[in-house]
């Protein structure tokens, strides 16, 4: 240990570079993350007090357990994690970078003597011709070598997979990039929602946290909303909305279909199919038959609305159910006589249009259909950081794969002439997965041996 190591700034630097801190960070992030999976996040005060009592509620609130992934201490842990990542990388990167800028072109005696993968041959061939043949062979079985002459000795050096030494750094960098993307999304993006009734359009959406609407700068119309069910079941198969985007009075996207998992994007703002529901009152299609004259007429009343009939009669729809016992859609009606008396209500069935004729009376009614306008519920997201996040994710996958599955492999061959003989020395190393490389080296050794003629 030299004296420099013990100075305070060095100790602080070593602390931030240490792997012990990395392990502490990773384990404390994983343990604290559990809290937010057990305690519901972003709930209301009443719910929490009911669940945990007032005293615990106050404590948890102080500890920011109800929004823990954005709490000062969790963000602080993530910060410490990032600082650790950056410091480790700064500390170790120059050493790895040296492999690129200053590859070990010439191996010393020590390498040829102590390497785990080594071989030696001697031959009567001249060093000159043998070197070029070995270089060719090495290019064939491994990769093109670099020839360096030093002290009258020929040195061949070949390497593969140097990028795998950067895998860990790529992975570390990718974490920072993903965090950066998340910050960009939080600062310059938003999450919102909007409900659009069929046939209407909106140009504002409502942020999830906050109550001031956001202007889109264009408008979105819902032309149609539909639910498709799996054949013969009540299971939804597809929710779809037809959306039209208008900007400055011009249609820019015309009647595009969106479904769950297939959103619509315009100018960086994306609309996701999310929910639906009834919008306003529906209207019925009812065929009325005058039982005396046999005359028919069709009316489209809303529920509760009085509709005039010939000879001073009137009727209105009191109620509607989509499924009445096993008979399907049904409406409850009543007729008002010309003197204003309210007659006994009765039920008509959409699937049995002749049913009401048997009731008798002045008129009979048949339910032809019921149309309930819907609204489509859309999630709206603007996230300019999402591509930064995807780039980070790609780098993380690529980086971790190259760190784990590939290794930096190097082969050195030295050809020297001594005492009228030519000596060929060979050494190789892999920075990962040595056993597999040892097998590979045995093959290389054989192929190199076959290249050398006239062995001595």
């Amino acid at each position, binding site marked *: 240990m030299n004296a420099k190591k013990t100075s305070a700034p060095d100790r602080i630097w070593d602390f931030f570079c240490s*792997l*012990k801190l*990395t*392990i502490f960070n*990773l*384990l404390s*992030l*994983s343990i604290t*993350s*559990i809290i*937010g*999976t*057990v305690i519901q*996040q972003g709930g209301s005060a009443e719910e929490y007090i009911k669940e945990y009592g007032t005293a615990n509620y106050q404590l948890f609130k102080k500890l920011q357990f109800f929004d823990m*992934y954005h709490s000062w201490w969790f963000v602080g842990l993530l910060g410490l994690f990032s600082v650790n990542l950056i410091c480790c990388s700064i500390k170790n990167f120059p050493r790895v970078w040296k492999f690129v800028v200053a590859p070990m072109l010439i191996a010393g005696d020590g390498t040829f003597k102590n390497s785990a993968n080594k071989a030696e041959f001697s031959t009567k061939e001249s060093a000159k011709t043998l070197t070029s043949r070995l270089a060719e062979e090495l290019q064939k079985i491994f990769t093109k070598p670099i020839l360096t002459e030093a002290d009258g000795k020929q040195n061949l050096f070949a390497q593969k997979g140097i990028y795998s030494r950067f895998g860990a750094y790529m992975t570390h960098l990718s974490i920072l990039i993903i965090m950066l993307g*998340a910050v960009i999304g939080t600062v310059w993006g938003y*999450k919102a929602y909007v409900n659009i009734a069929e046939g209407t359009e909106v140009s504002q959406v409502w942020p999830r946290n906050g109550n001031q609407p956001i202007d889109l700068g264009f408008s979105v119309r819902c032309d149609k909303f539909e639910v498709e069910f*799996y*054949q*013969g*079941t009540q*299971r*939804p*198969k*597809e*929710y779809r909305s037809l959306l039209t985007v208008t900007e400055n009075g011009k249609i820019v996207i015309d009647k595009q279909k969106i*479904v*769950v*998992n*297939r*959103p619509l994007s315009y100018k960086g703002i*994306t609309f*996701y*199919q*999310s929910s639906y529901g009834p919008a306003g009152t529906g209207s019925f299609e009812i065929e009325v038959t005058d039982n005396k004259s046999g005359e028919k007429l069709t009316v489209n009343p809303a529920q509760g609305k009085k509709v005039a009939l010939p000879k001073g009669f009137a009727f209105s729809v009191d109620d509607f159910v989509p499924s009445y016992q096993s008979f399907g859609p049904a409406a409850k009606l009543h007729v008002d006589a010309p003197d204003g008396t309210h007659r006994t209500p009765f039920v008509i069935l959409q699937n049995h249009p002749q049913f009401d004729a048997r009731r008798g009376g002045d008129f009979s009614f048949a339910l032809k259909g019921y149309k309930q306008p819907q609204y489509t519920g859309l*999630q*709206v*997201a603007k*996230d300019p950081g*999402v591509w930064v*996040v*995807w780039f980070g*994710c790609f780098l*993380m*996958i690529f980086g*971790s*794969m190259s760190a*784990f*599955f590939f290794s930096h492999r190097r082969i050195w061959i030295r050809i020297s002439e001594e005492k009228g003989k030519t000596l060929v020395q060979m050494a190789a190393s892999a920075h990962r997965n040595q056993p597999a490389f040892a097998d590979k080296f045995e093959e290389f050794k054989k192929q190199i041996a076959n290249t050398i003629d006239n062995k001595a």
Partner: protein
Amino acid sequence: MDSGQLFNFVTLGYFVAMVLFIAYLATRSDTIALGARLVSVAGLAIQTLAIGMRWYESYQMPGGVGHAPMSNLYESVVFFAWSIVLIYLLIDIKYRQPSVGAFVIPFAFLAMTWAQLTLNTSIEPLVPALQSNWLTYHVISCFLGYAAFAVACGVSIMYLIKIGKEEKGEGPIGGILGIFPSVRVLDEINYNAIMIGFPLLTIGIVTGAAWANYAWGTYWSWDPKETWSLIVWFVYAAFLHARFTRGWVGRRAAWLSIIGFAATIFCYLGVNLVLSGLHSYGG
């Protein structure tokens, strides 16, 4: 013959394989080890066929129900068992350690038994949120990763058993433990299995995030399932870094591997059974 019957054969096959692997521990017979391997390979082959058949059967159902068989709890448990056997056999090709099978194949057998006996095996149409190719990639990469972690957990248990005996220094280790690979090899298998599992888990989390982004417009919402997958990721990241740190190799690394697998299982099943969230389809 339908896929359901084939899955029953598979379950039986893994039971036989498990018994043979355990018999190998007791007898050290190479013939039994070979038998155990062959039965495992046959089980895997039949299971691959059965998964393919279930896929085909879903497309034969009326009303456009067809989808990859990776969408509900039953299908995922079956795929988990398939992944465990696949990863085990791949590692076995490299390390040739049949004793490891006795600690890994039981996971596959338990999964198949649970799936066949208690879970709803019918092919269900997909709700709109699940109709995404990302789902298929997400499930495949997650479960291959989980399977690698299952293998790592199995060898970690072996490691702890063996090192406990070795450290007592009761002379040469005989009996069942004698047939275990050396602690160095167990440690290496543990590390290699996690090296396979970790990038797969990473891909699983990323494809899950991509799917969430397409379906809901947010790639990360700290929902319990997402958070637990991140917890698992942190634990294995800690494991991978622990290897370079003095005082964290050997025993502690084995424990981290076991804790990591426990967290994996909680992420997979515990979150659905105990907690609630977006992934409620699985339950």
